[in-house]
């Protein structure tokens, strides 16, 4: 599983990545993390609000820092 965090690197993006890592650890699954900071790439997912979460190339959520529980639902 490839999990991408889209965002310019602001505090919210870091928090989302942290939560996503926790969710992965709690579910005990294997996942690779990637940060997407280039605006061209961010917009190519149709994202207008950062941070956004992409799981296996599917956009799951944008514009909010999801909680660990919420992220688990998307994995």
């Amino acid at each position, binding site marked *: 599983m490839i999990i991408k965090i889209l965002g310019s690197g602001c505090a919210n993006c870091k928090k989302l990545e942290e939560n996503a890592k926790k969710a992965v650890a709690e579910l005990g699954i294997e996942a690779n993390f990637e940060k997407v900071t280039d605006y061209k790439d961010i*917009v*190519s997912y*149709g994202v*207008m*609000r*950062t941070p956004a979460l992409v799981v296996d190339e599917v956009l799951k959520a*944008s514009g909010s820092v999801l909680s660990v529980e919420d992220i688990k639902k998307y994995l």
Partner: protein
Amino acid sequence: MSVFINSWFNDQILKMDWLSELIKLLVEKVFKLSVEDKVGAGVHFFIYDTIKIIILLSIMIFMISYIRSYFPPEKTKVMLEKVKGIRGNILGALLGVVTPFCSCSSVPIFIGFVSSGVNLGATFSFLIASPIINEAAFILLLSKFGWKVTLIYVIAGLLIGIIGGYIIDKFHLEKYVESFVYDIDAKETIVPDMSQKQRFHFASTETKSIFKRVYLWILIGIGIGAFMHGWLPDDYLVKVAGPENPLAVIIATIMAVPLYSNALSTLPLAEVLVDKGMAIGTSMSFVMATTALSLPEMMLLRRVIKSKLIWIFIVITTIGIIFMGYLFNVLELYNLI
């Protein structure tokens, strides 16, 4: 009758005079200080203002966020794609007020708009109006100056956005947008409709996050305001920034622009400044200028717009704010607000 209800609403609900009386009792009976006194007045202002702002911010940001859950930027973009000309500027400015976004999203929003064909002028109307009419500033204004001043503030902010975007449109400044923006093939996103439960959830998380972001600045502002209550000499301020000084608005605006980061702390200050004799328009310009032009946002936008257009954006907004300040001062002079 309606005048009575109106003033009761302003005084008891927005300004919370009942709370002021309650805190006065606390200061006088428990702390044994007189509110006529410098220290007593400062303590009263600090406690009363803090409680009032916490109550108002929590309730009203929740309500505003709920309304905003109906206007995600993706939907805003679709609405803006369809209109052209001045109507695009009007709609852009209006949507700028109701569409929620934090300044770290201003670049993806800009790219999303422009690359999908939204007119550059309408995009700027959106980008100018959005930070000027800031939700927390709106609420603080309502509680300190009543609905009339707040309404004019909103209308003035909208006009600055509309006219600013219109000028950018007329001068065909598209050449100052980094060319890669037009090459991006932004994918359409389908925004799933939210259930009522999700909207409430959105509103409560928004409230929490806005609160976390602003409370420290507001406390600092109230603190300085409380201090000024006792120690700032009235006659000095009236002389420097009172209604008599024709340059006061310009000075207040230019001074405020680099203060961007603690925008919201300026509103508790504005109330004290107006009490001490500063003209309302001058203090409004000060407040607007601190929220409208944020340096971090300009730096982010620099990645998609060339410096020249950023400067045009700054100049238009600054002139707009100065103009609005004078408008308020004239209205105040003729007792219209």
